């Protein structure tokens, strides 16, 4: 090595890898939200100019990962009969492999050869550096129409095509009135219509809880300060802006539970159906009651787990002794959609199910090991968190569209009741169809299912 070069090496070049070391801690904005550095007008002009580029990057990523074409499963609709359920495996395979050849490889081999399909990896936010809540257009339009409240951001739009989101508006099923079926009358519940839709159906305390769930409160991107992403000063966001009709409209944001920003994974809004049977709440936080989660959602969904920023923008802290229980009790009245082929223990009734659905149930209970975590008797939950260790299959730490892909760690087992109604799937929405989830678990659990078994599993999950 020439001397000059050696010197540079030791002095400056000095290995960046592996050693940096910060005698001092990282700056506060590694954990806390920084205050804005520019006037809103300039931020907005920049954001608007960048918006097409931002959208195009994300579309490129989605196109690389998924087949986004319109291929509904014939004759299968979501529970409200408002949208067909998309079928087929949508995650694209890397060149030169098939799903079967992939399933025959060891995790190590897949990792070393870089063969884990990109669609199985963590999904970035449209604009990771900014993050925040992003609503689908149907929600934005309907809230605009009914309430003249603006949920549109000037910096980003919703990324997935509409066909991969839940039907809108979703039906509402009440545990207190199973005989009625969907009580939404095809409408989106809002602060304008909730009373008229629900009087005579729910109790006074539920009604007050519902009102609070539909009342806008300041939020990180929708508020009155210069640090916002709505063009106009905003009254804020309501709980049911994301949990539309207590289900989900696939609005997403970034996990409030992780820092720094680049490592925060995306979160797809979960359905609140069947909340009464869930013992853990939140994919990571594992809060133990609906009351706790309801109270804390003001800190998390609204302000990314940053109570300091919330203080500046105006935070709503619902009163724990009265308001929170009312909000919780309303949420606990929301049922799963009916599953006429299931018996009271959560198993298929052989007189009603098809041969393929029954075969799928056998795979679910047996070779697929699915029922070990998705226990049929307890709403397909085990009230536990599991680490699926996906990082066995890919090299962690790669950055895609601003997201550093890291191990997911333990994540709560989600229910599979009404599962056909809630694409996209997984905590971050990285999978688009149930067939994708079957390929995912086939690989992750090393199941080596045959094509018939995979098809049967999908048919089975459509009955839940």
């Amino acid at each position, binding site marked *: 090595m020439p001397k000059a070069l050696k010197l540079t090496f030791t002095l*400056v*070049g000095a290995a960046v890898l*592996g050693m940096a*070391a910060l005698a001092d801690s990282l700056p506060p904005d590694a954990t806390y939200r920084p205050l804005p550095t520019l006037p809103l007008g*300039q931020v907005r002009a920049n954001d608007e*100019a960048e918006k097409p580029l931002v959208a195009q990057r994300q579309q490129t990523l989605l196109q690389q990962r998924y087949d986004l074409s319109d291929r509904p499963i014939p004759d299968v609709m979501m529970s409200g009969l408002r949208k067909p359920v998309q079928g087929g495996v949508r995650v694209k395979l890397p060149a030169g492999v098939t799903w079967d050849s992939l399933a025959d490889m060891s995790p190590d081999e897949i990792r070393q050869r870089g063969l884990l399909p990109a669609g199985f990896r963590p999904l970035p936010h449209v604009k*990771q550096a900014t993050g925040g809540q992003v609503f689908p257009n149907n929600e934005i339009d309907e809230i605009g129409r009914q309430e003249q409240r603006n949920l549109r951001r000037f910096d980003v739009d919703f990324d997935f095509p509409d066909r991969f989101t839940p039907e809108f508006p979703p039906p509402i099923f009440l545990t207190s009135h199973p005989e009625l079926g969907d009580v939404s009358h095809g409408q989106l519940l809002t602060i304008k219509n909730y009373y008229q839709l629900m009087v005579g159906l729910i109790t006074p305390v539920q009604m007050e809880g519902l009102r609070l769930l539909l009342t806008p409160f300041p939020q990180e991107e929708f508020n009155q300060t210069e640090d916002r992403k709505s063009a106009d000063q905003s009254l804020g966001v309501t709980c049911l802006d994301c949990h539309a009709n207590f289900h989900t409209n696939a609005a997403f944001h970034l996990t409030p539970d992780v820092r720094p920003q680049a490592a925060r994974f995306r979160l797809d809004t979960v359905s609140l159906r069947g909340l009464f049977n869930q013992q853990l709440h939140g994919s990571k936080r594992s809060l133990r009651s609906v009351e706790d989660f309801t109270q804390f959602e003001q800190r998390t969904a609204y302000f990314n787990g940053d109570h300091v920023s919330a203080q500046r923008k105006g935070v709503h802290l619902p009163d724990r002794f009265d308001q929170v229980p009312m909000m919780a009790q309303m949420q606990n009245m929301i049922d799963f959609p009916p599953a006429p082929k299931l018996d009271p223990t959560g198993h298929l009734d052989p007189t009603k199910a098809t041969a393929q659905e029954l075969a799928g149930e056998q795979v679910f209970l047996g070779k697929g090991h699915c029922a070990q975590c998705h226990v049929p008797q307890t709403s397909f939950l085990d009230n536990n968190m599991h680490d699926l260790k996906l990082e066995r299959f890919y090299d962690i730490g790669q950055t895609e569209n601003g997201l550093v892909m890291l191990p997911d760690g333990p994540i709560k087992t989600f229910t599979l009741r009404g599962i056909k109604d809630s694409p996209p799937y997984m905590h971050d929405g990285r999978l688009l169809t149930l067939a994708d989830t079957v390929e995912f678990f086939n690989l992750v659990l090393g199941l080596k299912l045959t094509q018939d078994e995979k098809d049967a599993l999908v048919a089975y999950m459509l009955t839940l």
Partner: protein
Amino acid sequence: MIRLFAVTFLASLLVGPASGQQANPASPAPSNPGGMPAGTREQAPGVPAPHQTNDADRIFIHAAAIGGLAEVDAAKLAAKKGGRRVQEFAQRMIHDHAAANDRLSALATAESIPLPDRLDDEHSTMRDKLEQASGTQFDRTYIEGQITDHQKTAQLLEYEIGSGENADLKKLASDILPTVLDHLRMAQMINSESSQAAERAPR
């Protein structure tokens, strides 16, 4: 020859496709214009012109350079004093970094950021400890220090990826993060193997 290579490399680095302009999800994503300091020159609205740095960029490059100094320094010591596994690890540390080192110094020069040329207190203390230690105690001290340093580096790189504004620095950070995490995993493995071995050893 080598100098020529360095110049070419530097040039390709600076005019290369790293400006976040293209729809290539592997290149740095758009940063948060809300996080740009006032007075930032823009090549397009919201896209900082090259050769500018914000606080995060400067903190990153400074800390990375200090860490770099300490790393090479400690690895050289470990390559002499360490046990077999530790020596291999230390060689790998020295070997793996050449390209990234060049990039860091090239970028620092291009952005006119002065780099530190001596260890900070934390690493001087570590250096003293390593000099005094020997045998398994040396191995343990070195590897434990490596684990801490790699953890900090990973957080530092993730911070730069999310908060920096200089596209080239952000790209550098995202390019080397997987290797840093790989090194961290190796160090953790050596650590757990040696603690198991210690448990098995007859007392």
